[in-house]
């Protein structure tokens, strides 16, 4: 049946002050299919899904939505109504209570009760256990969520949406925090659900995933619907062209750089945790970074990449061995302040927690670490602050009506661009980027790559962590691979292949389970 649609969106328009997030979007989702949605940052993907899940109630948008033959128009208590009518969603940003257990989080709002309001804990944990085993998720059901890693937390979030007897399951960038094995688990789950007849809407910036899992893809651009086509009839290049509205001939821009002498060296580096006293975070790490070079760091989630760069930046653990030199002189870095005084910058991984002050304007976020440039005695040169910030916002194409918008109002990818702008402005000699393109669309990725090239051409040296092998291979001059807190090898780009990197990345691990660390 070609017209058995479970979900019909007709002429949906949604405006925020100063931004048209969606304009006249119409498309349909077939019953039982996995329907991918792609588009650049700020294209309106998350907004569309939030309309479906009742975050934005009926009176805040225009257009008609038909779910399973019935018009839906959620008004008061919209979220509750959406849940009850069978729409289940995993939001782009984690929405869990870190102090509660896995089971409590999964059943939050739907606890089994008796005697009116008393929670039946045994029943709750029993169901949690069953749910987790049914889908092969290895998460301890009684553990406090805050103690789990990001990947596991994301799986809890997914499990939460599974437990709702959903008709339509929406996943907004579910894989941005998952490692390859977890992605595979998720895809297996989605296939099982598909067999059970659940329809799924799947948003991602990792285009290859559409070809692994979806039946149909819808492309959005600038809040408008571009196309809805069967996945089998398209390919990556065509999708990219539709997303960015122009032909993109190359994914990675080329650069011409004279690589110089080593500027930043690390030798026999070892770091212990300050939180758990007998835990080693990093050991046996030695590398040097040359002037104008991009050093990629590859490794699975939990391999210690983030720990390494954060501790080099002076904000994690306690260094107990090793020598760090900058321009031939030995240096000591004990805090972010020290690092910045040595012109070292770090774009952190977790943008919400470490990168942004969400309530403050884009402008204030960008200029925060560079305040010294703009301020004299008892005075801040606001014009200069604005002008400089504008330059970066423009070159990274941050999508916003103006720079006074609070950072929390931006789409996820645009928030990431703000964090990058912020550190670029400090004018570093050594810039560390921790997964800089996570959650960023192909067009913006290209911009960031170009920017990196500009920087190294000007003599800056870059360390870039990346979870995407293609990206590490496309951008680095050399690649250091990490596993379980150690460096397992440094490859020159000429000798590096996906297979060799993977081999080094799993060098210490015995079986699959340990990959997830």
């Amino acid at each position, binding site marked *: 049946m070609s017209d058995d649609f479970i979900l019909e969106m007709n002429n949906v328009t949604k405006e925020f002050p100063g931004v048209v997030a969606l304009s006249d979007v119409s498309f349909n989702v077939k019953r039982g299919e996995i329907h991918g949605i792609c588009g650049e940052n700020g294209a309106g993907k998350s907004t569309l899904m939030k309309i479906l*899940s009742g*975050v934005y109630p009926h009176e805040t948008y225009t257009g008609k939505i038909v779910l399973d033959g019935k018009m839906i128009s959620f008004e008061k*208590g919209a*979220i*509750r109504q*959406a*849940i009850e009518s069978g729409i289940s969603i995993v*939001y782009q940003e984690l*929405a*869990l*209570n*870190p*102090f*509660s257990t896995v089971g*409590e*989080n999964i059943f*939050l*709002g*739907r*606890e089994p*009760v008796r005697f009116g*309001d*008393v*929670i039946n*804990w*045994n*029943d709750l*944990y*029993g169901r949690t*256990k069953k749910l987790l085993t049914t889908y092969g998720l290895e998460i301890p059901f009684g553990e406090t969520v*805050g103690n789990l890693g990001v990947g596991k937390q994301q799986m809890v979030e997914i499990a939460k949406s599974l437990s709702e007897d959903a008709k339509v399951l929406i996943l907004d960038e579910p894989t941005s925090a998952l490692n390859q094995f977890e992605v595979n688990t998720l895809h297996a789950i989605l296939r099982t659900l598909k067999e059970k007849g659940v329809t799924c809407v799947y948003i991602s910036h990792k285009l290859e995933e559409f070809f692994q899992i979806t039946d149909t893809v819808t492309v959005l651009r600038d809040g408008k619907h571009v196309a809805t086509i069967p996945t089998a009839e398209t390919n990556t290049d065509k999708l990219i062209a539709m997303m960015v509205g122009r032909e993109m001939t190359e994914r990675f821009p080329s650069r011409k750089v004279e690589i110089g002498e080593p500027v930043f060296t690390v030798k026999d580096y070892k770091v212990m945790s300050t*939180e*758990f006293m*007998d835990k080693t975070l990093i050991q046996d790490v030695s590398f040097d970074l040359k002037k104008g070079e991009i050093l990629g760091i590859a490794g699975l989630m939990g391999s210690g990449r983030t720990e390494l760069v954060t501790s080099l930046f002076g904000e994690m653990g306690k260094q107990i061995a090793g020598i760090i030199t900058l321009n031939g002189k030995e240096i000591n870095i004990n805090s972010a302040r020290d690092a910045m005084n040595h012109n070292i910058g770090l774009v952190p991984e977790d943008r919400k927690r470490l990168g942004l002050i969400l309530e403050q304007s884009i402008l204030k976020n960008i200029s925060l670490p560079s305040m010294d440039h703009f301020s004299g005695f008892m005075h801040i040169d606001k014009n200069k602050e604005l002008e400089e910030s504008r330059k970066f916002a423009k070159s990274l194409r941050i999508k916003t009506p103006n720079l006074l918008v609070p950072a929390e109002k931006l789409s996820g990818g645009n928030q990431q661009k703000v964090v990058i702008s912020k550190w670029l402005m400090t004018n570093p000699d050594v810039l560390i980027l921790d997964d800089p393109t996570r959650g960023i669309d192909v067009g913006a990725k290209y911009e960031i790559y170009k920017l990196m090239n500009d920087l190294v051409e000007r003599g800056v040296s870059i360390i870039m962590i990346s979870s995407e092998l293609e990206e590490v291979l496309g951008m680095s001059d050399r690649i250091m691979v990490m596993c379980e807190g150690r460096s397992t090898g440094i490859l020159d780009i000429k000798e590096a292949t996906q297979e060799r990197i993977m081999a080094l990345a799993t060098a210490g691990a015995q079986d699959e389970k340990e990959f997830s660390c």
Partner: protein
Amino acid sequence: MLTEQNSALLKKVKHGLKDYTVLIALALIWILFSILTNGIFLKPRNISNLFRQASIISFLATGMVLVIVLGNIDLSVGSVVGFLSAVTAFLQVKVFYDLMPRIFPAMTATGQGIMSTIFTIIVVLLLAVVIGVWQGSLIAYLKIPAFIVTLGGMQLFRGGVLGVTQGKTISPVDSSLVSIAQGYVSKPLGWIIALVVVGVIFFTTMLGRNQKKSYGFEIPVMWKDILKASVISGIVVLYILVMNKYRGIQIPVLILAGIALLISYISTNTRFGRYAYAVGGNLEATRLSGINIKKTIFLVHVLMGVLSGVAGIILTGYVAAGTVNAGQSYELDTIASCVIGGTSLMGGKGTIIGAMVGSLIMASIVNGMSVMNMDIFWQYIVKGLVLIVAVYIDVVSNKQKS
């Protein structure tokens, strides 16, 4: 060098110590005071007074834990308690004292006194609900920050106290009201209570095991559960034993035990309670789970109002009058008790039992120092320092976790 096993054991000990920090602190304080007072501090008579003194702040702390767990604060409790205490005395002395003989002409004077106390309690509790509804709706539905609403309430109800008392002490209240705060349960009845409590503890332990088994969960080994139940029972029996050496279980402590157990149960085992923790833990996540956040916030503040009513009534019985400065600075003692007991001011974390121990620590300091005949000013200084140290411990231990 630590072997693997040793370090695991060490970790366990560290963890355990953290769970019981407040209890250990309490024990240390008691030991210190009993040395400094040549053992007077631990005499049954003093322990009896100590627990009764702690009870009024404890009533407030049971409610305050949930308020703080939400991520809110209630600065008005001191004034609300003072106001409701003044109203209690006013109703008894100025209203029902004249009214009762007319409504129940056939009754004895004692009977009329009891009736007037019952009427007073009902009216005051209703008024407490109204106050809770007032503050709760401003905070939850009109979205005025709790800090501001209750800062306003602090002034507003202090004004109420002055208005009701006209600046004078209202007394005497009926002896039945006094005995609610100062009375004792007869000794044999005390033993019956001990028996029942021990029975219930063991019964629920076994019931819990059976239910867990029927759901196919792993259950802890039998002796561990039995040991736990025995330790708790032991504490209860010991307490009643000591109290019966003096005059018996104090009535306000008995009421407190009932209410604290009830609220503790509500906070951990009902949706309402868990939602309060969820709101404080991650507001956005709770909202997106389709939970009625406003209602949860509203109800917590209503509950706080009711408990202020209970505290107000008992305070009136305790001082046997309505006074102008009743309840002054209770809000600070209450918040301090919660925080010492491990409630996080950031919201999302805190237990009723912890707050009870916290308020016992505060009361022990005051009591111990007055037994030692130290000047009053020392009490303030030491209480302030204890609060700061307690929060410091919390900060340090949180650092270790996150």
